[in-house]
């Protein structure tokens, strides 16, 4: 029986929102925003306002939106 090794289906389907984390390569301040088309992990975006270093997308991930 090799099938069950892949796990069982989740009872409730999770609805994930896609977030992009931007980070200055020097001051490492992370900024979290929603994903935009064209975003790629490790893509260089702008210059940082504080230190003029590159701002890079460090992570892109899906997360369940917080219930308010």
């Amino acid at each position, binding site marked *: 029986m090799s099938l069950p090794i892949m796990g069982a289906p989740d009872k409730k*389907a999770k609805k*994930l929102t896609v977030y992009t984390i931007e980070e200055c390569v020097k001051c490492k301040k992370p900024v979290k925003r929603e994903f935009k088309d064209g975003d790629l992990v490790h893509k260089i975006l702008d210059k940082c306002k504080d230190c003029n270093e590159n701002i890079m997308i460090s992570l892109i991930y899906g997360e369940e939106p917080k219930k308010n």
Partner: protein
Amino acid sequence: MDLIFIIGAGNTQITSNPILNLAIIYLPLALLILYGQKLQTWLITNDLSKTVGRLKEMKDKSRDETIAHITEGIDNKEETIKRLDSFLEYFTIMPVDLDPAGVINKLDHIMTSRDMRMKSEIKQLFPDLDELKANSIENVIEIATSFNFVYKIVRHFYLVGKKTNNFLLLAQLQMIIPFLMLQADALNKAMATFKKNQPIGDAIGPMIVGKLMLEHEKHDIAVDTVYAESDISGRKAILVTAKGPAGTVGQPGNAVQELINKENPSLLIMIDAALKLEGEKTGEVAEGIGAAIGGIGVDKFKIEEAATNSNLPVYAIVVKQSLVEAISLMTKEIAESVDTVHDIINRIIEERTNPNDKIIIVGVGNTIGVIQ
């Protein structure tokens, strides 16, 4: 008192006619004994017909989505749809393994020709596409093809079971249906992610190694595979991964084989996503020994052989995730394992190697949405 009622004896009577009482109690029992399996077959067939219907809906939706994705901004839609439908029926014939010696080379040859053919046909169909979009189309078609395959297999067993009224066949199909639906669900989610070039859970290996490769010069070493050289704690680290941000796994087998022969390293570290067991946490990091690489086995074979021939220890670091998570949008838990794995790499290098040693670090997985 209850028992007496059930067997229809004693003072408690359903009707005043004792024969009728017996019939009411024992007739259903006799019917169930004689026709119970027929009834169960009917119930299972009903249940399966619903599932097969749902699978067909999902399959058709994936075909429609694929059409929408690949015909975006294209005039000749009819021709493209016709070609897509022939893509969906593509098959690969596995080499004979009665005489297993050399079967890996044959398998490698078949899989490489398959990839090459797919790539060149897409290039022919859409000559003006950039590499990222062409790759995205290739991935989406691949997903739609898998969907078509899962659906056809399920339908086959369902129809055979129904035509032969084979209770056991239908029962077996019903038993594995939840797992096939899990796979269908995973494919469904993968489609959405691949269309937008977002990283999937399996991209964690290329992401971890890709981060170490930033700002170092990248060289091509195999099809869709790059390496870069870097310094980690005074050791020469050779970093290998598939070439992003297009969705590809590259050829880590060929790349590592060549690098082992050329550089004679003292350690090989492989980083990959691994299927978690139920109850294990997503994003958990585990260490071990051996070639951490999935797929059909060609790359694993090449790496194991090269490592054995040069007596090279192979260390594995894996990030746990479920099947669905591995091929759909990367979750937060998986993404946040990057720093943990970097710490482990540094620790292994400091403990297990000496300054000026050469180390190969491979990020295994599909590098969709990740730049090196």
